[in-house]
């Protein structure tokens, strides 16, 4: 069974002063699943994925990726190990061209293509997957908000990650863009596992094979969508039951 786990976190803790943002969380991700992380605002979702990506140091607990302990690995080394992270608040190189944004991502990932033709091919491929193929020459900061969100996702994809972490990716996207986003994410496994923080329950139910519900920094429930939907505690805390 061990080989079926991509990421395995145990007893993760992150307190901000007296605030228990993440308070003893266990989470397992399979290499080929879309795993949704849901919970009310302030539940600790962003903090938890920050711990997994290495942006925040865990105060206790351990994280293993593909069997290897990465708890003490700095964020940039985790990226090279195959964890890609997209920010809740869009973070792109606003003054650089879309192509230059993407080139930095392609060359920052674990698999590094050699030479300029390979780079161009790789960039074009990743942009095409998010529907920004014709935008390579534009300055990233001049793109529309929705396109900037898509560029952020494309940066994650260009890293060729084993695990792609998406923090509220559909926030502010138009309906058509959300539909395209769903197709994109559904096509990522089995090569890439996805950990998806998402408020749009329709997106969650459609994409996720498993759901973990977080509340006050603790795991309230974890399981397949049908079980989560039926869970009384989840209904009380979150689904507005």
């Amino acid at each position: 069974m061990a080989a079926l786990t991509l990421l395995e976190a145990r007893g993760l803790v992150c307190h901000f002063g007296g605030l228990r943002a993440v308070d003893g969380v266990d989470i397992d991700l399979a290499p080929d699943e879309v795993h949704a992380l849901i919970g009310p605002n302030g539940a600790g979702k962003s903090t938890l994925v920050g711990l997994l990506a290495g942006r925040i140091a865990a105060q206790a607990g351990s994280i293993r990726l593909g069997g290897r302990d990465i708890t003490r690995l700095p964020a940039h080394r985790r990226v090279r190990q195959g964890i890609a992270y997209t920010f809740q608040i869009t973070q792109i190189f606003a003054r650089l061209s879309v192509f230059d944004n993407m080139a930095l991502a392609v060359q920052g990932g674990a698999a590094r293509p050699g030479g300029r033709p390979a780079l161009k091919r790789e960039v074009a491929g990743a942009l095409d997957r998010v529907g920004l193929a014709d935008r390579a020459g534009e300055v990233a900061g001049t793109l529309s908000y929705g396109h900037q969100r898509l560029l952020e996702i494309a940066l994650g994809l260009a890293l060729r990650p084993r695990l792609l972490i998406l923090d509220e990716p559909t926030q502010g996207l138009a309906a058509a863009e959300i539909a395209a986003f769903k197709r994109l994410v559904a096509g990522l496994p089995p090569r890439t596992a996805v950990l998806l923080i998402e408020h749009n329950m329709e997106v969650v139910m459609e994409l996720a094979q498993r759901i973990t519900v977080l509340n006050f920094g603790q795991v309230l429930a974890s399981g397949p969508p049908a079980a989560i939907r039926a869970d009384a505690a989840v209904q009380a805390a979150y689904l507005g039951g």
Partner: protein
Amino acid sequence: MRGGGLLPVAGLLGVLAAGQWLLPAYHHANLVRIMVLALYATGYNIAFGYTGLLSLGHALFFAAGLYGASFAATLAGLPPGAALAAGTAAGGLAAAAVGVLALRTAGVAFMIVTLMFAQAGWLAILALGPWTRGDEGIVLPDAARALAGFDLSDDAVRYPLALALFAAGLLACLWLVRSRAGRVMVAMRENEERARMLGYDPFRVKLAALAISGTYAGAAGAAYALMFGYAGASLASVQYSILPLLWVLVGGAGTVAGPFVGCLLMFYLIDYASSLTSATLLLVGLALLVLVLFAPRGILGTLREKGVRWLP
């Protein structure tokens, strides 16, 4: 961001080369100094303009080159070529050492920490009077400034030498900022957090940029000592940390030739202002105000923004 840039740089170097024969003696002598200082500014631009590191401590790296070369020439009796190499290495090492500590901070804290290191260096130079002779400074003997039979105090000799150093620095800078490493430096300037989450180590990239920048400062300091035969504490003061920042801002941060343009302009502006009035700084201040109002990205930066896209 990519493509040529070699042509305009070669053009500038060609014009400077012609200056060896065409310039009147007064300007010919001025340009020697300007090219040496522009080498310093070009290096400063690598840290500040391209990597976004606002250092207020580069005088320390300039001084490391200045005194590194001077001591190599006087105490160790090395020939000018070796003294130049020693000063260059001293600048790079000083910058790397400062960087290891100062790069734990960012923004204003980084400015303060680098400033403090440079002030400590300046005080140390004053305190080590028996060797450095403090403010009075060391005057290098003529023997230390003879390079393969040529006299480094002769403008006809030091002009091409200064040009060769500046050209090497400028071309290396152009090559660097066009390279993959150069684009990662720019990524740190533009959005460090994003760059980190694309797999780049901010500390390593910034440390490398600072060390390269310090190497330039060291080379310029060493050349200054050898060509003008003097190393004094005033050249290690905070003024020499502010000046390259000013030159870069005037010429255009993040443009390859901006530091030279800024250095040239400020040199002649101060030269001209002091012939008019004793309130030189007032005139310089006014000029800077005009620049901030009409060309906030510096001269070349604003030109490039206005559509002169071939500027590197």
